[in-house]
């Protein structure tokens, strides 16, 4: 059967495409090293979040240290801890108030999949409410795991496209 192959990464076929790829790399480099996290802190993972933000596991080395406690000013939503049904509307509201580009990190087992709370009160994973870009497992994750998650997210940001004009604008 003759399948139509759709190229996922079209090779740069003109000087314009070469320039936009380079622009994406530059913008990706800038964005990945200046992440402003919004720590949406709920539960025990907060202890490891505090530990990873301070000495000796410093997230400032990765540019992701300064938390911005306003959704308008931040671009990385870190959902730290269990999400309950009562808290779900608040999470959705905060996510919608953030401006593009934004990324979401599900920090910990409870945010990833509900953890071991399988009952009437907890949501089985944050991705039932908002889309998630990176899942960091652990209960709570060791700081090294969190840093690994941030670095993988930075790779994701570096590889993605950063259009100047988006569909909404």
């Amino acid at each position, binding site marked *: 059967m003759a399948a139509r192959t759709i190229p996922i990464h079209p090779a740069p076929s003109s000087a314009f495409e070469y320039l936009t790829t380079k622009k994406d790399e530059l913008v990706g480099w800038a964005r990945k090293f200046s992440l402003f996290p919004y720590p949406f802190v709920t539960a025990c993972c907060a202890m490891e979040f505090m530990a990873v933000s301070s000495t000796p596991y410093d997230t400032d080395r990765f540019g992701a240290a300064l938390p911005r406690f306003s959704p308008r000013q931040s671009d990385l939503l870190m959902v730290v801890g269990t999400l309950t*049904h009562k808290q779900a509307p608040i999470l959705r509201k905060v996510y919608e108030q953030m401006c593009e580009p934004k990324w979401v990190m599900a920090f910990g087992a409870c945010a990833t999949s509900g953890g071991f709370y399988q009952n*009437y009160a907890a949501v089985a994973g944050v991705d*039932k409410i908002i889309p998630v870009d990176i899942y960091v497992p652990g209960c709570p994750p060791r700081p090294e795991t969190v840093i690994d998650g941030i670095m993988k997210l930075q790779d994701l940001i570096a590889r993605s496209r950063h259009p100047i004009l988006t569909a909404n604008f």
Partner: protein
Amino acid sequence: MAPDVFELIRDRLAEEVRDASVSHGILVLVLAPETLPGTVERLKSEFQFDLFLDVTAVDWPGQSPRFEVVYHFYSTAHRVRVRLKTRVPEADPAVGSLVPLYGSARFMERECHDMYGIVFRGNDDLRPILLYEGFVGHPLRKDYPKRAEQPLMPYRD
């Protein structure tokens, strides 16, 4: 010191109390729900049980009356604890509120109402505290299935 206070309480409150025993160092008094607020008032004024620790309920679905409401008090002067138990039926799970006596009763009675449906007469603020507006049912009752979720937000596909 502790056994003397317990003996004193048993003697003085003999009419109100249906049964008294000591369990693991705590005096346990079983009462009727109507006499509960009066007994608590006497415990507070005569025996200095000034710290209201906790109120919770136990659901015995096979038995009637179904719910057993359990109170714990602590006396900072005598350094002993006392447990009060009373039974309320499923049809009218109501007991008098302790809000006039203890300020901490407000939140704890709200939680007991949330989880079991026990009505505290005299506490005009029985809004859901651990659960949310729109939650139907009382989750800690034995007939509420553990995994019956009532999501507030629609799930993404």
